[in-house]
């Protein structure tokens, strides 16, 4: 059974602080996605990373895919209240046919 773990599970920080959340597995992924979900809504895609070691930036968000394609991180610089939400990573597992597995998520609260 392929599993994705995310840490921390909950994070509460002050506006302006930096943070990093992690997504880990023992499985190798062909690609990995990060989604953000706000209360009462469905997840929305932030980024897809495909190549081991790849780094992508989306304004104040920096995403990194591990060299071995088993893990990923999301770093937010100068967090803002609008960053509040549930951050989900989702991996496409090479050994499974056409399947994407979601992690349990990191719930981020940015306090003004």
């Amino acid at each position, binding site marked *: 059974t392929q599993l994705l773990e995310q840490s921390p599970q909950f994070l509460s920080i002050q506006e302006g602080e930096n943070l990093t959340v992690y997504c880990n597995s023992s499985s190798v992924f*062909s*690609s990995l*996605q990060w989604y953000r979900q706000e209360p*009462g*809504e*469905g*997840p*929305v*895609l932030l980024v*897809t990373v495909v190549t081991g070691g790849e780094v992508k930036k989306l304004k104040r968000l920096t995403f990194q895919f591990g060299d071995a394609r088993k893990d990923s991180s999301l770093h937010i610089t100068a967090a803002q209240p609008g960053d509040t939400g549930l951050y*989900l990573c989702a991996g*496409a597992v090479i050994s499974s046919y*056409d*399947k*994407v*597995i*979601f*992690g*349990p*998520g990191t719930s981020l609260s940015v306090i003004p």
Partner: protein
Amino acid sequence: DARVTQTPRHKVTEMGQEVTMRCQPILGHNTVFWYRQTMMQGLELLAYFRNRAPLDDSGMPKDRFSAEMPDATLATLKIQPSEPRDSAVYFCASVFGGVTDTQYFGPGTRLTVL
């Protein structure tokens, strides 16, 4: 602004009743997913379809759940009979392409089974 729509948004029912949830994928998207989200289990894939054909429903309890795509504009998820443990938010998502492409999620149906 193309979006995935889901109905109803909220459903409260009693144990043993049939529940039907509907999803309208984005026009032109050929792959549709059904997920269930709970605090304990997170986001779980129940089933998905490509070009209206079921590809994987291994995440779905077979004895009470069924998923269909009567046509390209409608996907349904039925629970019969419903149980309190089915209480969750059910999401539909659609994709143009494969599972690793961008999934567009609907707003979800919040189901409460009393």
